[in-house]
């Protein structure tokens, strides 16, 4: 099953990604009293990126509330709220600040259904801005998605467009299991598109074919999709047909869409902004090697960050974070093999 990029039907409204996220949260709060939003600065202030702007005023201080500054307790408290029948939607201010909560996440969040044989389940969402490209200070640009993807029992969703952000977030909030929802900081306000009005869902676990092509498959997600699109546009000029696949969801991964594309093109370029070793790009490469190696006409190429901390140095940030030029080179590399 492949969800191709179809223009939304019905009423739409032009929105940035952060506005689409705010819209999804607003709809979820209105639809279900169980939904509660909490985190640092999400209430009165509306979040450091304004993702929760206006929600406390509209839905009240009990439904949208500020917490003390402690990530382990934000996640741990959310787990308890989920056990007791609420739908907690926690915001962690930056993905790089998730680490104090890792004990709660790795030890409990994904295990609760398993350790109670489904007597309890955790319909919890943890939202966090992630990634670079906007010259944030040190520690603010991490891409820790592989840590979560490696944690059994949690889903990992990373949208790349306003419409997907809204539709996937509403799916995440209504999912019976825990979902990590990473939002590319770079995309919050840089992209606008028509977003369906009202409760609109994009299924978790279905990739999106962004552009179709016969020569190379470029697999990416989140903040790297626009980078891949720019590289693909340049390659098209040179007569190379590039199929860009936006995974949308890392767990569960839509391997069928990936494998079908590799079967057609025989070439794979994988793009993320996470460190090279043991990143989610490595998982994608392993799946392709296991399930589609007979189709490959060139080695798989990963275009990623490096095995060093994300550099807080504006002048050279672009060296670390893949740009269209690096992706275009990788496309050329697999074509020339």
């Amino acid at each position, binding site marked *: 099953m492949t969800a191709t990029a179809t223009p939304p039907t019905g009423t739409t409204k032009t929105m940035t990604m952060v506005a689409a996220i705010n819209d999804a949260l607003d709809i979820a709060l209105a639809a279900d009293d169980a939904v*509660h939003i909490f985190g640092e600065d999400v209430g009165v202030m509306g979040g450091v990126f304004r993702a929760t702007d206006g929600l406390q005023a509209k839905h009240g201080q*009990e439904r949208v*509330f500020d*917490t*003390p500054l*402690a990530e*382990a*307790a934000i*996640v*741990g*408290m*959310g*787990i*308890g*709220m*989920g*056990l*007791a*029948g*609420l739908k*907690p939607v926690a915001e962690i201010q930056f993905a790089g600040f998730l680490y*104090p909560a890792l*004990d*709660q996440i790795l*030890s*409990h969040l*994904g295990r609760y*259904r*398993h*350790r*109670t*044989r*489904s*007597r*309890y*389940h955790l319909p919890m969402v943890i939202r966090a801005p992630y990634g670079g490209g906007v010259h944030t200070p040190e520690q603010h640009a991490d891409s820790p998605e592989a840590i979560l993807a490696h944690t*059994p*029992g949690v*889903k990992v969703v990373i949208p790349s467009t306003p419409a997907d952000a809204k539709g996937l977030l509403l799916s995440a909030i209504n999912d*019976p*299991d825990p979902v990590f929802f990473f939002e590319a900081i770079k995309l919050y306000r840089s992209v606008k598109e028509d977003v369906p009005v009202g409760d609109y869902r994009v299924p978790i*676990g279905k990739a999106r074919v962004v552009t179709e092509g016969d020569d190379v498959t470029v697999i990416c997600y989140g903040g790297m999709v626009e980078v891949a699109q720019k590289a693909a546009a340049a390659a098209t000029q040179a007569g190379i047909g590039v199929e860009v696949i936006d995974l949308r969801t890392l*767990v*569960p*991964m839509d*391997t*069928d869409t990936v494998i079908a594309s590799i079967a057609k093109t025989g070439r794979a370029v994988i793009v993320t902004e996470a460190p090279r070793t043991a990143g989610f790009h490595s998982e994608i490469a392993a799946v392709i090697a296991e399930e589609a190696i007979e189709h490959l006409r060139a080695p798989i190429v990963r275009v990623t960050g490096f095995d060093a901390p994300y550099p807080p140095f504006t002048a050279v940030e672009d060296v670390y974070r893949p740009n269209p030029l690096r992706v275009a080179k990788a496309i050329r590399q697999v074509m020339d093999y």
Partner: protein
Amino acid sequence: MVQCLAPDGSVVREDLLPDPETRLELYRQMRRARHFDERGWVLYRQGRLGVFPPFGGMEASQVGTAAALTKNDWLFPTYRDTGAALTLGLPIARTLAYWRTSPHGWHMPADLKVLPFYIPIATQYPQAVGAALAERRQGTRNVAMAFIGDGGSSEGDFHEALNFAGALNAPCVFILQNNGWAISVPTRAQTRATDLSRRADGYGIPGVRVDGNDALATYHVTREAVDRARGGGGPTLIETVTYRVKPHTVADDPSRYRSEADTAGWDAKDPVTRLRTHLLNAGLMTEASEADLLAEITAEFEAALAEADSYPEPTPAEILDHVFAEPTPQLKKQRAEILAEHAAHDQAQDSKEQA
């Protein structure tokens, strides 16, 4: 330190005495817990129970506190709090199954809000805050109780939870069982602030220090804390001063890190003996009625043991059950792998046996 009964069983605070039925029930639950603990050792030696953390000597700390809850309240026990879980109603058979590492031990009864024993230290504390807050948000008067030890009170999650509960006025009762030891590390090496109840001061919530070997005292202070939480008065930290007379687990050898002198004197403070003396002196129990009680407890345990023995072992593919509501394509594929591998293994065994 709040105390109702002196170690010799004499009453030091008449005003704290609960009604006779409650005193008898606390004794019954302590005896049930002790029976489990004692039989647990024997079953472990017989290979019929896995490694299990004994709690004998801490019954007043676990029973007196948990007895203050109703079945609508939440209980977040650690691995050493079998006694608390049994008191609230966790079936003995399920508890045995848990310590046998059978999935049946993770099946919590639908009418109880007891979570499986917590292994990672202190993580249950913030979760109890969340459950308590959720009850309030949903308009109930239910509370959440979480247990921790002196070692656990050094963890960040402990401090974050106390602060959150205070800031959010969560109806939480935090039980801190100070049993003197975090495996081999004594409380005095754990912290300079050895009156652990005072940690509450840092978070603007009440802190109570109680004789953890006096079931009437632990029950009294916990009832007060539970009632305060139900009434919207917020969280309380209760330090039960007790002692881990037993090893850390049945596989631990305490002689490596403590001497008999460390433990001397604690047998004289035994919580079960203390309440027993009081009940006999007060004429609330006779040796004959006690014998009936012990016979009933023994029969109940043996019936539960038989039930636990009847639970089937899990099948290989069960390790992949209950990960998500709907298994992902990846899990479906992995299940097929296990099934295929296991069938092949079974066939190989068959042909080996036939050869």
